[in-house]
């Protein structure tokens, strides 16, 4: 048997379509999965910063200071700015960026961040951002 008859008789069309579909599905799934690997790894490496993994702790830790919604918003903006700096950053530099960026009440917000220990002195003249404290008080 030859030609289209042979293909039809041996179910060739179905085998080809299903085969191509399976190969494609497999590689698309793999492609999507490996595109997420680095994100999952990032999540795992920063798991201590995730509220999900800090549920029990966060229940026990009662924020001593309540930030107003406006302060929280400014704090978030400060955090974005701090992320553009080194881990141990210059406080005057952060303040300067906040002023340039037009954040509301940059000085008092910075004072609040220092007061609430969201920004902490590294004892070497620079400061660091305490992400866990930020999550407790702002997020």
């Amino acid at each position, binding site marked *: 048997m030859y030609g289209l008859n042979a293909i039809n008789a041996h179910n060739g069309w179905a085998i080809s379509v299903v085969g191509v579909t399976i190969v494609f599905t497999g590689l698309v799934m793999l492609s999507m999965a490996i595109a997420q690997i680095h994100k999952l790894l990032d999540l795992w490496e920063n798991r201590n910063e995730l509220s999900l993994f800090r549920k029990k702790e966060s229940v026990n830790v009662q924020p001593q200071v309540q930030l107003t919604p406006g302060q929280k918003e400014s704090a978030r903006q400060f955090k974005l700015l701090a992320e553009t700096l080194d881990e141990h950053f*210059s*406080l005057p530099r952060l303040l300067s960026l906040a002023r340039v960026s037009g954040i509301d009440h940059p000085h008092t917000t910075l004072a609040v961040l220092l007061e609430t220990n969201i920004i902490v002195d590294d004892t070497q*003249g620079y*400061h660091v951002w305490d992400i866990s404290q930020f999550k407790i008080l702002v997020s």
Partner: protein
Amino acid sequence: MESAINILKKSELFSNLAENDLAELREVMETRTVQAGETLTSLGDTATFFFVLHTGTILVALQDGKSIVMKNSGDFIGLELLSSKGIYTATLTALTPCEIAVIPRDAFLAFIQENSPAAEMFMQSWDRHHSLMYPFITEQNLTDKDYHY
């Protein structure tokens, strides 16, 4: 606002001074109120005042991006923490509304120059406090002390 003398008494640095020494300082001090965002000194300007914090938070921005935050009543901002040979080496910015006592620099230096026992006591406290709290401030700034010795 609390009297200047009470502000000095709260300071660890001035607490060992005798009453008459404190009274002498009180003569040259005055209290001020500053608003958040106000700049008290600018790096490179001629140094005219030292400061004692009563309430509020002040950012002391040093060279090289380093900084200190003053927020305790009685914190002293002067000597190598603020000036070198008559020039401010830091920029002071009030982060919140502050109440401060200001001491004219020349008067303060004259006080510790003329009053040896008080100066000795103050400088010992200052050195201890300084090395404990601000170890990262390098010797290159330590010149205001030499100015009067």
